[in-house]
């Protein structure tokens, strides 16, 4: 099962990297002296802004302590996308593995993951 999941993750990462690469090829080259305009309407309107920007950042600036870039700034291009994907997948694998260990394997085998639990009685055939 873990093998299947690992294979799926690899396929996902592989496909995703190729999609990003393909999307990059379609992008037109930048024209000198012309600044790129924001094309995503949602960003123009400020929709789906995180409350750390809209509330925490706002009050921090109001009190004279505006936020600054983190020491390890991964918020550069698609780097943040990569780290979120990576840690999201790692988190998902850890959750899935331990969930299986606690709730699937333990239940099916009748073994206890924690001490003090009585194993269920099995009927002899």
């Amino acid at each position: 099962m873990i093998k299947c999941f690992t294979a799926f993750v690899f396929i996902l990462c592989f496909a995703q990297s190729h999609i990003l690469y393909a999307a990059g090829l379609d992008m037109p080259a930048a024209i000198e002296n012309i600044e790129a305009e924001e094309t995503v309407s949602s960003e123009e309107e400020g929709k789906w802004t995180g409350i750390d920007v809209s509330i925490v950042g706002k009050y921090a600036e109001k009190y004279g302590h505006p936020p600054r870039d983190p020491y390890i700034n991964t918020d550069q291009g698609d780097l943040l996308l990569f780290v979120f994907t990576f840690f999201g997948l790692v988190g998902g694998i850890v959750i899935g593995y331990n969930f299986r260990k606690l709730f699937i394997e333990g239940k099916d085998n009748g073994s206890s993951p924690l001490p003090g639990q009585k194993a269920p009685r099995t009927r002899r055939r």
Partner: protein
Amino acid sequence: MKKILLGISIVIALLLLPHVAYAMHITEGILPPKWVIFWFVLVIPFVVIGTFRLKKKKKVVPGFLPLVGLVGAAVFVFSCFPIPVIGLNGMATAHPAGTGMSAVLLGPFVSVVIAGIALFIQALFLAHGGLTTLGVNIFSMGVLGSFSGYFAFRLAQRMGLKLFWCGFIAGVVSDLCTYMGTSIGLGLLVFEGDESFSVAMMHSAKAMLEIFVVFMATSQGPLCIAEGIVVGFALSYVYKVRPSILYNLRVIKEQ
């Protein structure tokens, strides 16, 4: 069964695909040095006690580690998972804390350690929170979130409520107190040393209240209810599938 597992894995993987998280974490650079030191000094005892409790429980309860792994990863994912919420401020994103659930299952001190690890990784690699603001973030999400959730759960149990509602109250209270902690951290920024203590505290309290009301009136109000439902369902699920886990961790008494 394998197909179901594969399906669950795919859904989890797709759900955890790229999202840029913006939430309650106090960002790098907001706190002046005196408050950075203050918050670190405040949370260090909780983290040390939590580490000892974790080591002790690991020896006493052999199956404790898988549960810590499961809950720890869940807290990490929850606390950087931006959920779109439509509040009074329009469309925004906010995230749950997850420490209410971990405090109920693992105990409040162990929950502080888990929150600390999750926040440290987020600050280091995800540009989410900050290293200098780690202390205040551990205080709000770890200490306040965990202890409030734990005591709310115990209080609800004493009132004789069903397990789902005990979990629901723990989730809601934990989320509320987490954001209260963030409000305290931000509100203390207006604490000026030049003023007398009482006046400075009054100014800080006013700022804290203002920020907390804004938090709740915007996106976080509906989200804390959602977190309560998730915690309630999670505890009900564990009780249904493996009640022995709850018995052995003394979450509920064996009947």
